[in-house]
């Protein structure tokens, strides 16, 4: 396994507390993964023992945390050069890189093994693939080598609902992959909107994010293109027997707002001048990047609403729209 490049020594660092090890697991990312995985599990309609359902979600959460720890170990050199990430446990010297790597490997093995033994090996295999894809394919390869890093790497963040579905039913029909496709197509406009007003950080760290490599104008155009593909895709679950009337309403209204905000980003000058922020906030930006900030913030809200609606409909056994339900596959 490749070694993480050297990071600045930090002799005077505070000793590692248990909270630092928890931070290695990226709890905020983990909570989003838990949410989407739970949606996949519930939307599948599978008759799963609630305790085993909780174990499945736990395994997915721990697997995501393990990926985060491996990412923080390998990316410590990049994290140390970016304002947003330089306070993380490894670059700040509170936790040794080798400890972070060991935690990541142990938790990966634990989560995959438990998923296999408690649920099924299809879900365990998908979980293992997701961890390897994020830690090796994205972190060690794509992130440092191509501007398409978050496009391809986004697959890792898109797979949790598929794993949840597989855990509940033992198979993954088209509707499960539809949830994956929605997150996959959401990722580029979401991250590129953020990177439009944090591109200085990425440039300093040598990360080839789209605004750094292709420029802000090209990034704004690609955000619009992806948004025009993403918004109609969000409507598809309403015709494959996955979403109900509430989902259709949320997807249609939210999708229209999403495209409108993406259009504003396209017409704006976001990213044209470097942001000279003095803080670490993701929402405090200069005037010319406000449109990018708005899209970034709304993208989080929209994805949350989409999955919350699917989750709510699944829990309430709300009637689904069955226009083309047969192509969605069995629940």
């Amino acid at each position, binding site marked *: 396994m490749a070694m993480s490049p050297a990071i600045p020594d930090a002799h005077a660092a505070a*000793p590692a507390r*248990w909270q630092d090890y928890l931070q290695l697991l990226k709890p905020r990312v983990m909570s989003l993964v838990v949410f989407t995985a739970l949606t996949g599990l519930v939307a599948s309609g599978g008759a799963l023992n609630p*305790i085993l359902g909780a174990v499945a979600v*736990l395994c997915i959460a721990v697997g995501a945390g393990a990926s985060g720890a491996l990412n923080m170990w390998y990316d410590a050199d990049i994290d140390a050069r970016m304002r947003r990430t330089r306070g993380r446990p490894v670059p700040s010297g509170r936790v040794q890189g080798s400890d972070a790597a060991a935690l990541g490997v142990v938790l990966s093995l634990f989560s995959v093994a438990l998923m296999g033994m*408690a649920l099924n090996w299809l879900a365990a295999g998908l979980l293992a693939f997701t961890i390897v894809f994020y830690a090796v394919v994205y972190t060690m390869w794509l992130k440092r080598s191509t501007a398409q890093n978050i496009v391809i790497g986004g697959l890792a963040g898109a797979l949790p609902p598929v794993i949840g579905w597989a855990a509940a039913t033992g198979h993954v029909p088209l509707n499960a992959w539809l949830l994956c496709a929605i997150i996959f197509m959401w990722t580029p406009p979401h991250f590129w909107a953020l990177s439009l007003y944090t591109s200085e950080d990425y440039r300093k760290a040598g990360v080839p994010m789209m605004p750094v490599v292709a420029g802000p104008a090209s990034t704004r155009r690609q955000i619009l293109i992806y948004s025009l593909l993403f918004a109609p895709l969000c409507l598809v679950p309403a015709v494959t027997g996955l979403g109900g009337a509430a989902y259709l309403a949320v997807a249609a209204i939210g999708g229209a707002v999403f495209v409108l905000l993406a259009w504003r980003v396209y017409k704006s000058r976001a990213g044209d001048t470097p942001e000279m922020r003095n803080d670490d906030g993701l929402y405090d930006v200069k005037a010319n990047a406000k449109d990018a900030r708005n899209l970034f913030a709304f993208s989080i809200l929209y994805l949350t609403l989409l999955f919350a609606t699917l989750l709510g409909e699944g829990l309430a056994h709300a009637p689904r729209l069955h226009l083309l339900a047969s192509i969605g596959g069995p629940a």
Partner: protein
Amino acid sequence: MSEPHPDPEIERRARRGRNVALALGLVLFVILIFVVTIVRLGANVLDRPI
């Protein structure tokens, strides 16, 4: 392991916190495996030759 912190009291408190968290994690792990075993096997635990 990283070098010990110059202040032994801060180092001791941090180590104690890590140890307690690790102990809790191990206890939860044992409980988790026990519960999963019971749920997976259910009444079949008793359905075996003696």
